[in-house]
């Protein structure tokens, strides 16, 4: 198998794995699962570093009830998040914003990944282009003697 084919196969496996991984669980999602998914990315207003799904604080309980009620009423995830943001501001969401300074947080891993792949390609190319090491006559004689040549 040629080296190029190996790299192409490796790339294909990576793309498929990323696609499958980013799709998340398949199949129909229950209302309870939806509510849990939303509350897991909403910050508990009265506690530090906990999501509403993780906290037992009264404010977190109130948000959980409200999210469940809105999910039951047929609102979309975006509508429910928009309601919470309209009350508490963007800070209520544990995910960074996809605009302004928040965009840096999303872009940084992509830029970092691209830089790492680029660096790897450059290093591998340089290694391939490097001329082979020269062996001294003494060393060559030693190798020949050991191999019985």
């Amino acid at each position: 198998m040629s080296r190029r084919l190996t790299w192409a196969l490796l790339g294909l496996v990576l793309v498929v794995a990323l696609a499958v991984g980013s799709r998340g669980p398949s199949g129909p999602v229950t209302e309870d699962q939806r509510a849990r998914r939303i509350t897991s990315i909403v910050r508990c207003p009265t506690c530090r570093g906990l999501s509403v799904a993780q906290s037992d604080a009264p404010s977190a309980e109130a948000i959980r009830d409200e999210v469940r009620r809105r999910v039951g009423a047929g609102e979309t995830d975006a509508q429910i998040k928009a309601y919470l943001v309209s009350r508490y501001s963007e800070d209520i969401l544990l995910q960074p914003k996809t605009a302004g300074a928040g965009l840096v947080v999303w872009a940084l891993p992509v830029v970092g990944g691209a830089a790492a792949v680029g660096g790897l390609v450059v290093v591998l190319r340089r290694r391939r282009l490097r001329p082979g090491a020269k062996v001294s006559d003494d060393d060559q004689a030693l190798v020949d003697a050991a191999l019985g040549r």
Partner: protein
Amino acid sequence: MTDPSAPTETPDVLPPVVAGLRRSRKALWIAVAVAVPVALLVLALANGQPAATRAVKSPLLGKPAPAAEGTTVDGTPASLAGLKGKWVVVNFFATWCVPCRQEHPELVRFSESHQAAGDATVLGVVYSDNAQAVQEFRAKEGGAWSMLTDPKGRIALDYGVAGVPESFLVSPDGLVVAKLLGGVRASDLDQLLYRAKGGQ
């Protein structure tokens, strides 16, 4: 014969009893040095005046105030809509919250000073507390304004309350003019009201 006036030298190794006494005296001084400032801090926090009223940003500013209606701690119905035409300080309160207890006399003062003019009032909302505790507190400390119960925290959620005390100044036409974090002072509320009415 030894000279009694000669300075006595401290022995290199102290007897165990003396060393123990010195250690326990040192520990006592450290304990006092830690305990006194802590006790003073606790006293200051428990009895101090509320800090200056702090107005903060909120997505609700300039928007219609969320509905606040239900049953008061006395069992009578009340609502924010029923107070339309007046400036209303919607105050989220709990008896277990020390800053809420500290700001209460300020709210009483504010409410009483505007009672005759009828231009402004207070609407309380109980935050994660029981009606009986609030009733007992008000019987002792005063406060004649309506105090809504909020059993499921829906009103607090609609106002984006993250803790108590928090207050919102609502204009006579029902718009949120200010969000106040922490304890409020009557004089600061008056100043805020003056500015909101168009004064400078």
